[in-house]
């Protein structure tokens, strides 16, 4: 249905965004922007991970 090109572009954009967000989280958590940003970043990271894990597909979930 959709052309291959916008799909690939979307995927690349998705990967790049993830990479940038990942790096941002890393820098934040190791304290580059100060202790409070680190704590906040850690909490947000764990929360995000928790949400993503919780919504995982059937064969992989913790039930």
């Amino acid at each position, binding site marked *: 249905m959709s052309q291959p090109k916008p799909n690939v572009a979307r995927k690349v954009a998705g990967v790049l965004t993830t990479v940038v967000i*990942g790096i941002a*989280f*890393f820098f934040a958590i190791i304290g580059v*922007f100060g202790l409070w940003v680190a704590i906040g970043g*850690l909490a947000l990271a764990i929360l995000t991970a928790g949400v993503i894990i919780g919504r995982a597909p059937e*064969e*992989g979930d913790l*039930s």
Partner: protein
Amino acid sequence: MNLDAAMLARVQFAFTVSFHIIFPTTSIGLAMFLTVVEGLWLKTRNPVYLQIYRFWLGIFAMAFGVGVVTGIVLSFEFGLGFAHFAQIAGPVIGPMIALEVLTSFFLEAGFLGIMLYGLRRVGPRLHFFATCMVALGTLLSASWILSANSWMQTPDGVAMQNGRLVVTDWLKVIVNPSWLYRLPHMLTAAYLTASFLVAGVGAFYLLRRKHTLFARKCVSIGMAFAAILIAGQVFIGDILYSTMLKHQPSKMQAAEGFWERQSQSPAPYYWIIVPDQAHQRNRLALGIPYLGSIWLTHSLNGRVEGLESTPRDRQPAMGMVFYGFRIMYGIAILMFAVAVASLWLRWHGGLFTTRWFLRSLVIMAPSGIVATLGGWYLAETGRQPWVIFGLLRTVDAVSPVPAGTLLSTLIAFIFVYAFFMTAFLIFVFRMIRRGPEAAPDHAEASASLKNALRLLESPTANAVLGR
């Protein structure tokens, strides 16, 4: 390198303790993993969880066994190689290790028999309790020994009286300045080690399209824990870094690879150096510009303190400290990247089928062990030339044993330990090749482990789990 008694005693201890740490790190992590898995089995009665438990129990048992016997060696080696250290520090770390034996070694040992051999003799709840107790034992064990080692790094609560160390305040000894940061750091390292080990084996099976259900659960559980733990670990690591900067500046100066009292501004982050300790400079230094200032001073142009800030007779050898740190930190970054990738793939549904990712998991399977070794080399070589930081030098702590004897026993250790490692690896790989046992295609809410296991091992059982 001069092969005198002092150097040989150090090499021998370094060898035995490096070998040893591989196994308890794995055991502590796997014990917690087994607790989680058995708990999940009890809650859901899904036979996959029992299958996972049985498989990893075998590997855990071997790792635990090798850990115990190599650990006994260490409790005597304090005195064997470093008798003077034992004499001075005995009154301080001795009682702590005694409590470790009483509260954790006995606890692990007491319930390990039930955990390994009692599957058909006790009910599932008691067996789960045994698993929990073993995991608790490993946790307590890590706590005590980390306290003892942390006291060696940041001593407190003691006073020197007539050339002997006397404890003045036990709370200060145990809760010394670095313990509360190093303990979560080591525990997390152990749990990360197990997470990547489990995920790596799961990925291995997925790549070969075998034991699919088992493998998916392993990858899922492994990477779920890994993702959360690595975030926590780099956070704890940074806090620990600041603590050690305050209490052991010489270690952190050596760890970053800078020699001048104040580095250039902005400072790069070195990844490769060829240090020349004799001339107090690097023959080669390659790094990422600006990143040193950003990561180490949280600014764009901050200067980093170099090793020349420490008097020469108190400097650790930069090479080992630097590379220990880089190996540990480098792997942490890789773990973080893999974790982020796992979350992305989980969200988009390719966690179990993306082959490049599964291959990376297989490669990362032993990463926790390598990182832990790197971290410990940072910790121990960075404390040099002290064995008790600021109080006792390593060279003054050595036993009155001739160098020849130390060399012979070092060689003996190398042979016997090589034998242990070879056997361990052969059997682990054999277990992995054989794979987990088959499981029936419907879950039986079994009241007894015995029945559940019989179903699990029944040769006629049609395995949905794929054999």
